[in-house]
C-alpha cells in the first residue's frame, strides 16, 4: 500500500514537473487565451491560468484515484468487495475542500471584475453602434464618425462558390475597410448600442466583450499598452451575416493618433463601403437609437455633445450616388445584381413592391420589415438616391426620381 502511495506521489510529482515545463510553451501557444495588451487582459489571463491549473490539479487527484481504483479493485485482483458505504467525516472533508478552493478563485475574480466595471475618468469616449452587419464608430465630441464593414477581399472570398482560397486573403474575415483607431496609454470608454438586433463587440487582445443592445447603452473601457492592430469579431448571433462583421482596432501612439484625428476632422471622408455619412453626426446619430419598430422618440434633441461638435457638412450638392448607397447597404442581402437570395431575401429585380408606389419602398427602407433591418440611419438624400436607383436599375424601369423631401415626410 505505502509503495503504491509513494508511486502515486512520484507519478504526480513527475506529472507536475512535466506540466511545469510544458506549461511555459503551452501558456503562450496561439491556442491559449492571449495575454493581450492591456493590464486588465493580463489579469484576466492570469485568472484563466489559475483556474485552469486548479482544475488540472483536482483532475489529477480525482482521476488518479479513479484509475487506481479501476486498476486495483477490479474483480480479478480484488474479488471480495468491501462493505463500507458511509463516512460522515470524509464527506465533510470533501465538501469543505472544494469550498475553500472556490473562495480562493472567487476573491481575485471579484477584484478584477470590480476594475473592469470602473469606467470613470476616461480620456476619450467612443460610441459603437451595431448594425446588421457592420459597426459604426463615433468619436464623441470630435465629430468623427464612420462605418466599419468587412473588407472587400474577404467579402468576395466568402461567397459560396467564390473559388477564392481564403488562405490567400490577408486576415480573412478579420479585416475591415475602416479600422477603429485608438491612442495607446489613454483610458478609452466605449458606449455600445445597436440599431437593430443584439450584437456583441469583442477583441480578445483587449479582453473586453460586451453586448450591443438596441435601445440601451452598455459601457466598457480599455487602456492599450502597445501600438498594434488587434482583431476580433461580433459575438452575438445577429442574423445571416453574423460571421462576417469583424472588429479591428488599430492602436497608435498619441502623436500618430492626434494626426489621424486631425485628418479625419479635416472633413476628409473615410472611404467607406457605407457611403460617406462620415462627419454628418447630426443627421445620422440619433436615428441609431431607433429600435425595431419604434416611432422615433425625440431624435432631433439627441446626443448633445456629438451634435454640437459636428461640423454640419451637408452632403455635397450633387447628392449621394444611388448605386454606391445600394452597394454599401443593400447588396449584402439583395445582391449587387438585385437577384437577392430567395427565399429569405427577395429579388428586387421585378419586385412588385419596388415597382409599386414610391412611398411603400421608402417606408420599407426606413422601417424595415421582418428580416430586413430599418435603414433610418441613412440620410434622406441617401435613401432617396438608393430608392431611385433600385426603381430604375437592376432590371427595373419605373422612371421616377424620389426626392429627399418625400423621404423626410415618411420618417
Amino acid at each position, binding site marked *: 500500500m505505502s509503495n503504491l502511495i509513494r508511486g502515486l506521489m512520484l507519478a504526480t510529482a513527475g506529472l507536475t514537473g512535466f506540466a511545469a515545463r510544458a506549461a511555459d510553451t503551452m501558456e503562450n501557444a496561439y491556442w491559449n487565451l492571449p495575454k493581450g495588451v492591456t493590464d486588465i487582459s493580463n489579469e484576466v489571463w492570469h*485568472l484563466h491560468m489559475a483556474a485552469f491549473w486548479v482544475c488540472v490539479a483536482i483532475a489529477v487527484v480525482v*482521476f488518479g484515484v479513479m484509475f487506481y481504483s479501476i486498476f486495483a479493485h477490479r474483480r480479478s485482483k*480484488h474479488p471480495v*468487495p*468491501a462493505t463500507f458505504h458511509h463516512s460522515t467525516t470524509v464527506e465533510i472533508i470533501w465538501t469543505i475542500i472544494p*469550498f475553500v478552493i472556490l473562495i480562493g478563485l472567487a476573491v481575485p475574480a471579484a477584484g478584477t471584475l470590480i476594475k473592469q466595471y470602473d469606467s470613470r475618468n476616461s480620456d476619450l469616449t467612443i460610441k459603437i453602434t451595431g448594425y446588421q452587419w457592420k459597426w459604426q464608430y463615433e468619436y464623441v465630441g470630435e465629430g468623427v464618425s464612420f462605418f466599419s464593414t468587412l473588407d472587400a477581399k474577404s467579402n468576395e472570398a466568402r461567397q459560396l462558390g467564390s473559388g477564392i482560397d481564403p488562405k490567400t486573403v490577408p486576415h*480573412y474575415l478579420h479585416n475591415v475597410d475602416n479600422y477603429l483607431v485608438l491612442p495607446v496609454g489613454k483610458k478609452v470608454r466605449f458606449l455600445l448600442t445597436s440599431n437593430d438586433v443584439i450584437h456583441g463587440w469583442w477583441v480578445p487582445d483587449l479582453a473586453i466583450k460586451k453586448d450591443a443592445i438596441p435601445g440601451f447603452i452598455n459601457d466598457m473601457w480599455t487602456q492599450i499598452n502597445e501600438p498594434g492592430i488587434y482583431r476580433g469579431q461580433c*459575438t452575438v*448571433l445577429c442574423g445571416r451575416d453574423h460571421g462576417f462583421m469583424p472588429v479591428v482596432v488599430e492602436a497608435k501612439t498619441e502623436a500618430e493618433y492626434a494626426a489621424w484625428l486631425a485628418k479625419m476632422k479635416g472633413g476628409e471622408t473615410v472611404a467607406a463601403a457605407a457611403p460617406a455619412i462620415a462627419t454628418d453626426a447630426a443627421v445620422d446619430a440619433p436615428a441609431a437609437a431607433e429600435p425595431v419598430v419604434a416611432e422615433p422618440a425625440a431624435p432631433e434633441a439627441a446626443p448633445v455633445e456629438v451634435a454640437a461638435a459636428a461640423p454640419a457638412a451637408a452632403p455635397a450638392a450633387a447628392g449621394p450616388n444611388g448605386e454606391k448607397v445600394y452597394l454599401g447597404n443593400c447588396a449584402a442581402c439583395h445582391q449587387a445584381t438585385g437577384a437577392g437570395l430567395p427565399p429569405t431575401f427577395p429579388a428586387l429585380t421585378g419586385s412588385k413592391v419596388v415597382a409599386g408606389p414610391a412611398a411603400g419602398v421608402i417606408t420599407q427602407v426606413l422601417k424595415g420589415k421582418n428580416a430586413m433591418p430599418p435603414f433610418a440611419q441613412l440620410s434622406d438624400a441617401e435613401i432617396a438616391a438608393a430608392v431611385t436607383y433600385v426603381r430604375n436599375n437592376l432590371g427595373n424601369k419605373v422612371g421616377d426620381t424620389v426626392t429627399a423631401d418625400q423621404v423626410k415626410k415618411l420618417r
Partner: protein
Amino acid sequence: MAKTHDHSHAHGHDHAHDHDDHHHGPDKGVMRWIKTTNHKDLGTLYLWFSFIMFFIGGLMSLVIRAELYAPGMQFIDPEFYNQMITLHALVMIFGGVMPGFVGLANWMVPMMIGCSDLALPRVNNWGFWILPFAFTMLLSTLFLPGGGPAGGWTLYPPLVLQGGASFPLTIFAIHMLGISSITGAINVVVTIMNMRAPGMTLLKMPLFVWTWLITAYLLIAVMPVLAGAVTMLLTDKYFGTSFFNAAGGGDPVMFEHIFWFFGHPEVYIMILPAFGIVSTIIPTFARKQLFGYDSMVYAVASIAFLSFIVWAHHMFTVGIPLAGELFFMFSTMLIAVPTGVKVFNWLATMWRGSMTFETPMLFAIGFVFLFTIGGFSGIMLALAPVDFQYHNSYFVVAHFHYVLVPGAIFSIIAAIYYWIPKWTGVMYDERLGKIHFWLSAIFINVTFFPQHFVGLAGMPRRIPDYAVQFTDFNVISTWGAFLYFIAQFIMIYNFLRCAIWRKGMVPATSQVWEGAHGLEWTVPSPAPYHTFEDPPHVGDEPAAAH
C-alpha cells in the same frame, strides 16, 4: 402472449371489472401504439422517438461540422447554417435528451418502486403523442419559404422576431413541448408520491427515482416560464406588445432573464436523471453499496435549488450591474460543491469494490470522467471576468457538449445497455458494446476537445465560416464528429438485434447482472406487460443497497 382474447374494444373503459383481464394484452397493429396506456409501451415509444430525434439532430450536427471543415463557405448558405444550429439544439434537447429520460422513467420508475403503471396512464399517452406532432410542426418549417428558425435555440429577440413563417410554428411547437413535459413531470411526481409499494419509504428509493422526482419538480417549475416567455415573443411580433422593445419601455434583455430562468434549470433537467443512472450502474458493477446514499440525495436537491439562482451566468456580458454580476458568479461557483460530492461518492463506491467492466459500467465510468471535465470548464466559465473572454466562443461549445454528449447521452446509452436485457429478454452483444464504447469515448474527445483550444484562440460560436488560423482544430473536430456518428451504428445494430432480430441472441436471466439490486430484477426478463399488479413488499434492508 395471449393471442386469444382481444376484447378491449368491446369493453371500453369499464373492462377493469373484467375477470380475466390479465389476459388482456395490448391492441394489435398501430392502434396498440396510438391507444396504449401502458407504461412499458409508452416508454418504448419515447425511446424510439428519442432515438430518431438523436439521429436527425446528429445529421444536422454533421451538416454543421461539414460546413466548418475548412474556411470559406463550403456548401450551404449562412442563413441555412443558422437554421441548422437552431434546430440541432432544439431537436437534441427537446426531442432527444428529454424524451429519452422520460422514456427511461416510464419504463423504470414503476418497476423500481413496485407499482403497476404510472399514476395517470392516459395523460401519459397524451404527453407522448404531443411530441411527434410538435416536431413535425417544428421541422416542417424547413420546407417553408424562408426556412426554419434561425435565431439560435435561445430565441433572443429582436433577432428571432425577424423570422418569417417559421416563427409562429416554432413558438407553438415549444408550447406543445411544454405541455408534454409538464404532463410527463406531473405524472412522475404523482407516481412517486402516491404509488410506492408498501415499505418503499422515500429514503429507500433507488437514486434514479430520486433524481427523477427532483427533475420533475424542476420541469413543473420552469417549463411554464418558458411558455410565458415565448408567448411574449409571439405577442411582441403580432399583437404590438412591447415586452422586449426599449422604445415601449421594455428590454430585449428581459427575455434573456426569463429564458435563462428556464434555461439553467433546464440544463440540470438534462443531467440529474443521468446522475441517477450512474448511481445505479456503478454499485452494480462494483458489487458494493452506493457510498453516501443520503448525501447523494441532498446533493441533488441542493443542485436543483441552486439552479434557480444562477441563471444570469449566461448573461455576464449583457451589462448587468456589478452587484448582480458578483452574486451570479458566486452562486454559480457554489454548484461545484454538491456536484463534487456526487463525483467523490461515485469514486468511493468504486473504491475497494470488485469491479467488472461490462458496457454499461464502461459508459458510466466514461460519464464520470468526461462529465467532470465539462464541469471544470463550467467552473472556469463561472468566473465572470474571464467569461468576458470565453463567452460565446467555442470554449462554451466545448463545455456544454462535454456535459451533454458524454454526460447526458452517455448516461442514456449506459441505461439502455443496462436495462435492455430486462426489456427484451435477451442479452446484447457484449463485444460489440465494448467496441462501441471505446470508439465513442475516443471520438467524442476528438470532436470536442479541440473546441476548447479554438475557442480560447478567439473563434466565436454560431459562425458558418472562420478565419484561417482556426482551421486545424476544426478539421480534427469534424473528423471526430463523423467518426463518432458512424460508431453509433454499432449500437444501433446491437439494440435492433435485441429488440427485433432476436434470433441467436442469448436469453437473459431475471437477475441479468449478478451485482444488481432492486425490484426490477425480481420480475422475469422480458418484464411482463403488467408488472406488480400486486405491490411487492419491500423489506427493511436499506435500499441504499441499490
